[in-house]
């Protein structure tokens, strides 16, 4: 019966109900998008790192964290040194350069890259032939609507698309290693060295040896790189940022519910008086108001979830290379909890106001 009362009330003012739900839904979408983007983008980086085929990655000693891509600080001669170490099958030097955020261009030697990753799968075109050649993966090609033969602006320079490849290997954008070294005035230097072993089981042993001979250089297995990525992204304030957005969500939800329910209570003094004249207690009145607020909160969460699917569709359609968004189910419950808490807090004052209404005044003939 409470449910029916509440539903009829919500239906009676559809505009007010829908607006409240929309306003609650927006911060829910924001939270879900943020979380979904961080999950999606980390997963994409990890997938591409693993797709390189390497077991170990070595970075320049001044590279403090995995996401700092500037500075090619590894001497190229390390390649030969690593190649001669026991268990090392393939080595590959890579130069990284930030393109439009958050994209990174990798300069690679295709021979090394093919040996390490098992080869690129060309959907269109083929390998580099000229110094202004660029290879895009299909996501970046889709995002920029480029085909083989088209020219493209990357890093303030015009390139010609020579090939479009299946994604998931190292980077969305590849250029010849030498060209990028030139551009960065980093001749003879590398940003990372990827190492593939004869058997992945030897990874920790080889890392141990390398760390001894190259103290100060960050050396990670690809698994460690994956967790490092996650930790770095989290420690770089994303967590705090999500918390802030969650706080904003709570405040908005609280304010929307408070306003909406307060208005509803003012409009319904008579109905509330009637319920009291029938013996409805303060607790009963409060329960009705809280139930209505909870429904608004739940509706807002549901709409927010729906809109996060919409956001993902838009991202996948227009920015598939730059951004990846995952639907993170575990956050649906959290978002619901956040909005329900906000809704209860927001409904408390209107609800108590309603519960305290004097039924005689409410029923007085106007």
């Amino acid at each position, binding site marked *: 019966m409470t449910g029916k*009362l509440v539903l009829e009330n919500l239906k009676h003012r559809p505009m007010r109900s829908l607006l409240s739900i929309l306003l609650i839904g927006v911060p829910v979408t924001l939270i879900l998008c943020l979380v979904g983007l961080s999950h999606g983008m980390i997963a994409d980086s990890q997938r591409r790192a693993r797709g390189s085929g390497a077991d170990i990655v070595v970075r320049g000693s001044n590279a403090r964290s995995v996401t700092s891509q500037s500075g090619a600080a590894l001497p190229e001669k390390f390649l030969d040194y690593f190649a001669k170490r026991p268990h090392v099958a393939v080595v590959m030097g890579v130069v990284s350069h930030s393109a439009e955020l958050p994209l990174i261009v990798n300069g690679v030697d295709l021979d090394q890259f093919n040996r390490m990753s098992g080869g690129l799968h060309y959907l269109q075109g083929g390998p580099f032939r000229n110094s202004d050649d660029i290879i895009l993966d299909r996501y970046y090609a889709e995002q920029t609507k480029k085909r083989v033969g088209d020219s493209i602006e990357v890093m303030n320079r015009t390139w010609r698309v020579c090939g479009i490849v299946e994604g998931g290997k190292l980077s969305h954008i590849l250029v010849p290693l030498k060209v990028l070294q030139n551009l960065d005035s980093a001749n003879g230097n590398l940003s990372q060295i990827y190492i593939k072993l004869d058997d992945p089981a030897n990874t920790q042993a080889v890392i141990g040896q390398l760390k001894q001979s190259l103290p100060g250089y960050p050396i990670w297995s690809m698994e460690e790189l994956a967790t490092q990525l996650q930790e770095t992204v989290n420690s770089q304030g994303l967590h705090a940022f999500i918390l802030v957005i969650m706080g904003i969500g709570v405040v908005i939800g609280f304010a929307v519910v408070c306003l909406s329910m307060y208005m509803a209570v003012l409009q319904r003094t*008579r*109905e509330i008086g009637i*319920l009291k*004249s*029938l*013996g409805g207690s303060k607790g009963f009145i409060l329960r009705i108001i809280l139930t209505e607020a909870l429904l608004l909160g739940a509706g807002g969460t549901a709409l927010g979830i729906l809109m996060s699917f919409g956001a993902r569709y838009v991202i996948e359609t227009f920015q598939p290379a730059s951004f990846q968004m995952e639907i993170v189910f575990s956050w649906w419950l959290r978002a619901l909890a956040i909005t329900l808490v906000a809704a209860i807090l927001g409904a408390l004052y209107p609800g108590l106001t309603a519960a305290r209404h004097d039924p*005689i005044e409410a*029923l007085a003939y106007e």
Partner: protein
Amino acid sequence: MNSGPIIQVRGLRKIYRVGKVDVPALRGVDLDVPAGEFLSIVGPSGSGKSTLFHVIGGLTPPTSGSVVVDGRDLAAMTDAARTRLRKRTVAFVFQKFNLLPNLTARDNIAVARYIAGMDSKPDPAFDEILRLLGIGSRLDHKPSALSGGEQQRVAIARAVVNHPAIVLADEPTGNLDTENSKAVLEVLRDLNQRLGQTILMITHNPEAAAYGHRTVHMRDGRIVE
């Protein structure tokens, strides 16, 4: 009519405080109503009739005096206890019907049962009452689709659904034309005669008052005869 009055009012005073002014609405009311009586209350506007009902129905506490309803003294009761009284002991019928506008007639009645905690029990006696009221075919309409007379009959059905000891009807025909007034008054008389329902009815209309067994007159917050 069985032993002892179901309502016993002694020296009842009710003073409303409006801003800094005391408004005496009841200035010493004594009244006995035996169970099963249909009592009419008449008197000029502002004489305290509605206030008397509000006190008996527990909507507001008495300022002084004693009000014993169905054996319980309202003066000694908490707000919450007086609210509980309205679930099954005292029911109101208002001039303005006061149905919940968003609910159908059926649901309006169901809400009263729900609040009283009676909603799970089947009630064959109530079907009889619905027949008596002649609203059986109108139950799935919302109040806005019902005539005034129908709305008031739904309100009466809602009032008696929990079999209260007392029905307080405050000008139940004040908003109705002659024909509908007559129908509502006859329903009240039927409820009283067939079920022994105790009814107190405020009215301005002497013809309506004549439906009661007895009429008391109020003036300036007192019962004058």
